[in-house]
Structures are given as structure tokens and as C-alpha cells.
């Protein structure tokens, strides 16, 4: 039982970069991202799928990286919170800016998980209601904000984006 476990070769993409690594099968994807790839933007909270801090995108879908083994991602495309601002000097993603503006974080521990949950949600639901936003983030725990400012940030960004799109098409933005 305690003899060293043989590793497996896997090849996958994270934020557009292809990696090839050897992993022990029991290595959790969350630990793999942080310890093996040094992508510490993905946070680790409960490690049993309840808190949502480790949420990342697997082939475009939000999943818990603590409930997947790294060995399972062979051939997959991952996006982590680092992928939202590919260049360190570039401005933050507009959703990140909205979190900043609306005080959608205090300690920031849960924020990467919220952002990764919300990106695909807002792709599918560009104009969500408050109720839909609250359901979308129901699997992410935040102990600082009481969620109100996170909801404000999401609705705020959705409105701004719609207004910008309307302006781009030469129409008056909706008030």
C-alpha cells in the first residue's frame, strides 16, 4: 500500500499553454495546479466540493478542481483565474474590475472561484436576473461580503456590457 505509486504522463493545456507532466494518480487537480504548475490563483478551501474556492474551467465548464485527479485531464483545456489577464501588465478583466468597483471582495480568498463560476454563466446568460445570479453562485461560499456586493458587481457588469454593446451598434444605451 505504501510503495511509491508510479506516475503517468499527461499532456494538457492551461490558459492557452501546453504542458506535459508526470503525475501520481492520487494527485488532486487543485494541488497539481498550485504545487506542480505554480498557478496559485486557484485557491483550496474545503477540499470536498462544498466551498467552490477551487473552481476552474474544464473545457469551458466550471468544475471543482479538488474533485478531479490531475491524471484525468490528459488532453483537456483548462482555464484558471490567471487566464483572465494573460499579460501581467494588462488591465484586469472587466468582471474583475467590476468586483473591485463594487467591493465584491474583502479578503479575496473566494474570489477566484467566484470569477471562474461566473465567466461561463455570463456567457450563457448575458442579461441575468438577480435571482439567476444568486443561483449561479450558490455553490461558492464567501464569508466577507454577504454576497450582496458580488451580486451588485455581476449585475453592474452585465448592464455595462449591454450598454456598451448598444452603443457599439449606434443605439442609445438603455438607462
Amino acid at each position, binding site marked *: *500500500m*505504501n510503495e511509491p*505509486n508510479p506516475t*503517468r504522463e499527461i499532456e494538457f493545456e492551461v490558459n492557452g499553454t501546453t504542458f506535459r507532466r508526470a503525475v*501520481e*494518480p*492520487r494527485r*488532486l487537480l487543485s*494541488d497539481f495546479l498550485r504545487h506542480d504548475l505554480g498557478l496559485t490563483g486557484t485557491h*483550496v478551501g474545503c*477540499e*470536498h*466540493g462544498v466551498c*467552490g474556492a477551487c*473552481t476552474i474551467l*474544464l473545457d469551458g*465548464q*466550471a*468544475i*471543482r478542481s*479538488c*474533485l*478531479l*485527479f490531475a*491524471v*484525468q485531464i*490528459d488532453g483537456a483545456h483548462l482555464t484558471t483565474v490567471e487566464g483572465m489577464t494573460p499579460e501581467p501588465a494588462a488591465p484586469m478583466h472587466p468582471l474583475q474590475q467590476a468586483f473591485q468597483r463594487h467591493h465584491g471582495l474583502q479578503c479575496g480568498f473566494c474570489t477566484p472561484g467566484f470569477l471562474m*463560476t461566473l465567466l461561463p*454563466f455570463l456567457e450563457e446568460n448575458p442579461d441575468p436576473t438577480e435571482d439567476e445570479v444568486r*443561483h*449561479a453562485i*450558490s*455553490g461558492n461560499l464567501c464569508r466577507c461580503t454577504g454576497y450582496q456586493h458580488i451580486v451588485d458587481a455581476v449585475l453592474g457588469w452585465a448592464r455595462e456590457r449591454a450598454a456598451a454593446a448598444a452603443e457599439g451598434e449606434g443605439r442609445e444605451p438603455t438607462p
Partner: protein
Amino acid sequence: MKPAPFDYFAPNSLEEALEQLQAAGWDGKVLAGGQSLVPVMNFRLAQPGVLVDLNRIPGLDGIEVDPAGNLRLGAMVRHARLEKDPTVARVAPLLTAAVPWIAHPQIRNRGTLGGSLAHADPAAELPAVMVALRARFRLRSAHGDRWVDADDFFVGLFATALEPGEILVEVLVPAASPGDRVAFLEVARRSGDYALVGVATTLRLEAERLVDLRHVLFSIGDRPHEAHAAADCIGQQPTPELIEQFSLAVGREIEPADDIHASADYRRHLAAVLTRRALTQALRSGGAA
């Protein structure tokens, strides 16, 4: 966090998977979505020596209607797909009603139908739905296939009719009859938590009288419980008085246990309240065309 070491196989065919599982015997475990298995492995409550991952096997995630009108669902269909699939909504509306209650969006993106059923958590939604819908499960081993009724499949706490070396590969849900009305409700302490009590109901009226009533409760024992009291309602008009009587009878016939989440009395109370609400809601829904 580190689960105990295990051997990992990710076969490309069901035949290989069955061989590997057979070879592993009691030490082998099937990995589907992993949304229940991986947490218990993280806590080392489960320490399987061999994991056989089904995620690379093609053909296990079909959603089809067979010539007889039954819904045929592959075991690896993920919850998020069940939730949005128009065929599922048409043929098995109770299933569509239940899926949004399962955990959270991120879990539904990964968790699978077959995984939930094989895990057989008594507080989970899908086992109760399958009992209410008279679903049948196809279990495959190296020796061939066998079909097991949902009601016979769930034998106890996290226990099923699956033998070592067997994999649940397909779920057959008989088509809803025209006019079937459904409701699914549960009460949980927090959104997405396992239910303290939940109910899955399907009923049908003819000439304003109940000709079919299947009412299944979950999280009140070691497996889904179909209300015996439903038999007394058949042939009767679903008046508020009858619904009230039935709800109280349901509260009396179950034998829930006390635990840290709720007392047995509270569970009986919830069972009666949810039963009343579910029947009222189903009757209001008007039924499929």
C-alpha cells in the same frame, strides 16, 4: 489533501473496464463524475486500491427514446445535460424537475446519472425519482447484462444490487403517460445541501379521479420510500381533504431517524407538509398534453 494511493485505469472500452474491475474484485471502484467518490477519498473514508475511470469510454452518454417510447439514458450522462435536455423534459418531466435540486452548478457539470444511482445516498434526489418512475437499470459484467428494477436496486444505506465487477451502464425510464402530472420538492438547510426530506410525485387523473399516484420520499430512511398510503387514494377525487388525509398518513407511515440535521419528529412534519405541497402543485400543473 492526499487520498490514499491507488492504481488508476482509464480504459477506452467497456470490455476493458469490466476486465480491470473484475480483476480488482472488492478493491476496485468505478470512477464516473467523482463528485461523491472523490470527497470520501479525500477524507480517506474510502480507500479503493483500484480506480476504473469511465470518462474515456465512448457511447455511455446517450439520451434517446426507443421505439417503445421509453427514455434510454447512458450512465455517464451528466446532471447539467439532463437538466437542459428537451427530450428528457418531454418524456420524463419529473426528472427535469428534480435535477436543479442536485447540489450546485459546478457539481452538476461533472456529476453523472449512473454515479448518483450507484452511490445510493439515501438523501439524494435521483434514486427517489427513479423509484417513482419505475425505471430499470442495465448492469453489465464480464458475463453479460441483467436488468434490475429501481426499487430492487436500492437495498440499503449506500448499498445497491451491484455485484463486484458489475457496472451500471444504462437507465430505462418508461415514458410518462399523457396527462401525467409531476412535482418534486425538498427542504434543505442551505441551497444545494442534501435534503432533510424530499418528495417525488407523479399522478394521473381520469374523469377527475386519481388513477395513478406514485409518491416517493427520500432522506427519511436508508433508501427511497414509496408511500403505501397512495393505494388508498386511487379511485378518489383529489379534494383538499383527501390530500390532507394522505399527507398525514405519509407522515405517520415513515420511520425517520434523529440525526444532527433534524429530529425524527421534524422529518415527519416536513414529510407531511411537502406531501401536501407536492400534490397540490402537481394537480395545478395541468399535466402533459
